[in-house]
């Protein structure tokens, strides 16, 4: 039992390392090649855990190989469009100019129900509203609505949007300054302490503080 426990701990650490190595792409939407790697890795990891006759390295080596190959292939994929097309496929346009490409839909084995469901997921409830739709390599459908169905933007109503800031980020997390966020927002610690002084608060009094690069901030006081 102890062997199974130790093996599980080692493989757990290894799996976390592998997923971290493969990067954030792996955690979100999976490309076909990434999906294959993820399924394989999860399958391989269970074998040495279940069967102590199998050397642990027989599990570790394929996991590391697959994770490393995935990273290297995606690196080559960035450099070569052809390779990217080969491993990930290409997005397919199924609605163009408001017209459904039936041939393409048959090719993708994409039913009308699939299309309607994908559109609803994007907040579009009538196919008539769609100007352009693409089935992405991840299987998601991206939709561009016809102009008359699109939401009004600031530009449409001539609202001044010259000044725009990045969204706010957490700069104090339970009394600890998040320096990387401050740096990204181009704010200094002097500004931070100044803001705290304005609120008559100490660093330890802060449960959460968010700030935007424009200097606007939001504070939540520590309850304890």
């Amino acid at each position, binding site marked *: 039992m102890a062997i199974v426990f130790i093996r599980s701990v080692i493989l757990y650490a290894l799996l976390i390392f592998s997923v971290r190595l*493969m990067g954030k792409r792996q955690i979100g939407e999976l490309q076909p090649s990434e999906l294959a790697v993820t399924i394989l890795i999860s399958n391989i990891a269970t074998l040495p855990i279940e069967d102590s006759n*199998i*050397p642990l*390295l*027989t599990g570790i*080596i394929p996991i590391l190989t697959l994770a*490393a190959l995935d990273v290297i292939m995606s690196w080559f994929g960035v450099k070569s469009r052809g390779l990217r097309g080969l491993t990930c496929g290409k997005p397919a346009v199924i609605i163009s100019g408001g017209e459904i490409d039936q041939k393409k839909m048959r090719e993708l084995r994409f039913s009308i129900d699939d299309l309607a469901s994908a559109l609803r997921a994007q907040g579009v409830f009538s196919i008539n509203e769609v100007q352009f739709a693409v089935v992405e390599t991840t299987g998601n459908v991206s939709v561009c609505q016809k102009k008359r169905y699109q939401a009004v933007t600031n530009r449409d109503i001539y609202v001044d949007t010259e000044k725009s800031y990045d969204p706010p980020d957490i700069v104090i997390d339970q009394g600890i300054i998040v320096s990387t966020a401050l740096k990204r927002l181009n704010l200094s610690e002097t500004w931070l302490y100044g803001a705290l002084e304005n609120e008559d608060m100490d660093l330890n009094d802060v449960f959460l503080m968010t700030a935007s690069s424009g200097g606007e901030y939001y504070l939540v006081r520590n309850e304890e």
Partner: protein
Amino acid sequence: MKRVIISWIILFLIVCYSAAGLYFISFKNNGILPILDELQVYLDTGDNNAAYEAAQRLALEWELYKRSMGILIRDDKLQSIDTSIAKINPYIYVKNTDELYSELQVIRRYIQNLYSSELPMWFNIL
């Protein structure tokens, strides 16, 4: 880029490990096969005491072999050799030469197979 470099390093280390693993199996085989030859010679000449002593050395060497090979080779492959080695001493004791020769051949074949089955040849890969 850091991830790509780490990935290349991992692949390089795995290739090195595989090569080192093969060398290690071959090295360990070279330690155990001569003892089998020696044992065979003693049995051929009818020197049972020397054969018994060689069998003891074989069992000792095998224990070390098994322990170190456990990280490279599936346990069930080693288990078959373990069973055959366990039979050698009783066979020498009861002077069952036919069975003894047969077991020695089995051990030799299994040990040689451990190496050949790890070689990256097309018949092993497929």
